[in-house]
């Protein structure tokens, strides 16, 4: 990769100072601001608090990585922003602010089926899903599916929209886009399908792109290509990205800032270097050290996080991580920790890092 882009990444870092820090006024207004979001699923078996008091901001042109294990609420957070949560799921409280120039739109208050949300969804906030085979319609060509969105949002003529679709397929490095535009999804390989999904998501030039595990179903060499492509497109299109993944290696490669979620809550948020060099939360530390490291002798025991993720209908009292935490102290069993700033832009929800318990 050219050194120029690395220098560019470094140069934007200082601009971003204070954006994640809720206490200080941000220098640039975030595009997305989520405050105390709670999305619950009311089922006969009880209420699952899938997202439970999540707050974060996404700055313009930045990539926020959302990591955590299955059931931590990262996908439900994304679907809440897109207003795609289906019953029995419901946004209970909290706000999702989307900034368009001078306007601020409260997405959480919009009717998910209403005109305004439909004009934002796909046009201004677009989403890429994990499995391109199930999120593309098998009976329409990929061209038709991209054209549909462009015509819907811009009212373009068919010919204009088709030209734009071909241009987008070219931008995501699909070979022979003039021919591929008339292919059906099954005629494309997995990597090509995911590129077509990205082309569709970016065809309306959205301000925010939400990517939910976009490379998880792909082979490693194809995954590397798609990540490289997303990095390049972000530079060109100046979109903000929310990148959801369970793979710490992937997030290290693409995110500027990282949020670690556990059982519906944010346990740590920090710039990407801080989270990898100096994870503060015992859960983040556990996740990092459970990966097989190239520096660890082969065939030796990996360090593990003991136990499993608890039942979402019977969440532990106090800190939700306490039954698995190697550093648990009395207060963890009683009182939930709050997200506290430990250094610039680095916030962690752990009693060990709260000033009063230190």
């Amino acid at each position, binding site marked *: 990769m050219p050194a120029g882009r690395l220098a560019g990444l470094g140069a934007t870092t200082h601009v971003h100072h204070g954006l994640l820090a809720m206490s200080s006024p941000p220098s640039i207004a975030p595009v997305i601001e989520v405050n105390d979001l709670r999305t619950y699923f009311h089922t006969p078996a009880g209420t699952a608090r899938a997202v439970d008091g999540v707050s974060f901001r996404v700055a313009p042109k930045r990539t926020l990585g959302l990591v955590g294990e299955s059931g931590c609420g990262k996908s439900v957070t994304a679907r809440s922003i897109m207003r795609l949560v289906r019953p029995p799921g419901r946004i209970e409280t909290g706000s999702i602010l989307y900034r368009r120039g001078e306007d601020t739109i409260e997405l959480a208050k919009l009717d998910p089926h209403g005109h305004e949300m439909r004009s934002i969804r796909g046009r201004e906030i677009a989403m890429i899903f994990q499995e391109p085979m199930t999120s593309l319609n098998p009976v329409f060509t990929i061209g038709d599916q991209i054209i549909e969105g462009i015509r819907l949002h811009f009212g373009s003529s068919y010919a204009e929209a088709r030209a734009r679709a071909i241009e987008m397929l070219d931008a995501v490095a699909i070979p022979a886009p003039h021919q591929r535009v008339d292919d059906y999804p099954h005629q494309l390989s997995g990597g090509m399908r995911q590129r077509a999904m990205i082309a569709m998501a970016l065809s309306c030039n959205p301000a925010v792109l939400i990517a939910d595990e976009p490379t998880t179903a792909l082979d*490693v060499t194809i995954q590397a290509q798609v990540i*490289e492509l997303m990095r390049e497109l972000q530079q060109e299109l100046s979109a903000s990205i929310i990148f959801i993944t369970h793979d710490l290696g992937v997030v*290290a490669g693409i995110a500027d800032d990282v949020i670690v979620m556990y059982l519906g809550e944010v346990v740590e948020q920090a710039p990407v270097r801080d989270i990898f060099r100096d994870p503060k939360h015992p859960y983040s530390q556990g*996740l*990092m050290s*459970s990966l097989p*490291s190239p*520096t660890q002798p082969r065939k030796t025991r*990996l360090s593990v996080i003991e136990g499993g993720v608890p039942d979402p209908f019977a969440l532990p009292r106090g800190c939700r991580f306490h039954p698995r935490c190697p550093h648990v102290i009395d207060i963890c069993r009683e009182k939930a920790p709050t997200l506290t700033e430990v250094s610039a832009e680095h916030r962690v929800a752990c009693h060990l890092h709260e000033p009063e318990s230190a």
Partner: protein
Amino acid sequence: MTSLLEVRNLTKTFDVRKGFAQRLAGSVRAVDDISFSVEDGETLSLVGESGCGKTTTGRALLRLVQPDSGQILFKSQRLAPKGEAYRQVDIAAATPAELKALRREIQVIFQDPFSSLNPRMTVGEVVAEPLEVQEFGARSEHPARVAMLLESVGLSANDSKRYPHEFSGGQRQRIGIARALALEPRLIVADEPVSALDASIQAQILNLMLDLQEQRGLAFVFIAHDLAVVRHISDRIAVMYLGRLVEVADTDTLFGNPRHPYTEALMDAVPVPDPDRQRSKMPGLGGDVPSATNPPSGCHFHPRCRYAEEVCKTDTPPLESSGADHFVACHLADSLELQPFDSGGSSQPIRGRQ
């Protein structure tokens, strides 16, 4: 010395049928003339991307698919003639009775812990079933043996009365491992056993497999695509591409001195959990894995290979020795300077407190 398992020139072709009339449209050489061996107590990993034939190879070892040609020689103790320690049995040509006997010595762990356990059977029944089928010991001793097996994989004896749906993915994989261990096999084929699991659970299962190997002297054929995991648990690694072996070596040699361009590209594509290293990599591998129905001529890898020359387009490179216990199928193996896996992390700690 005779290897525990010796695979010679294994080939498996699948017919491809198309359309309403299921007309024969071609064939896929899922496994194309591959040979390798596995020693007692060692872990050999088969790695490669989807469609490379690693799963078909694993299934052929169990004869869950019938190979077209080649031999799969297993050093069987149960089928040894009187007075002998073992007999080499060709799994590819074994009779049904021989196969049943071999099931005691070779077992399998599947990828998906949700679909590989019968939802209508209790965990106790799942683990006891191989004991009953094989009439292993006295039936009255089975419950005690099931309890012992569950405990050895980190579950409790009381779990035997529960049903698979009551368990998480990691616990179900433990049940699958207990079932595989029930007959005290010497070789376990593990097909992507941890790829469906979350990171923290994956480490638990890998530790369990390492412990069991140490306690029982098990050999594993470990089929996986995650090179970080593979590097950690393997003694030797075989890299596959479009049905062929491209490189076989012991783990340290493969990572420290790869000789095949595909191995180099595969190692470079691994997402490393280090933000600084990730963004300063060489340009990745272009193109897609070609269709296996119509593989490229010569070396299958040549259209994606940055080093390819004319000879690569026409001639298939044989798998040849390239140093002690190191085999490579590349025309240019001796002239290329390839990047070893960047182990990194030597100067700065990048991991959390251990």
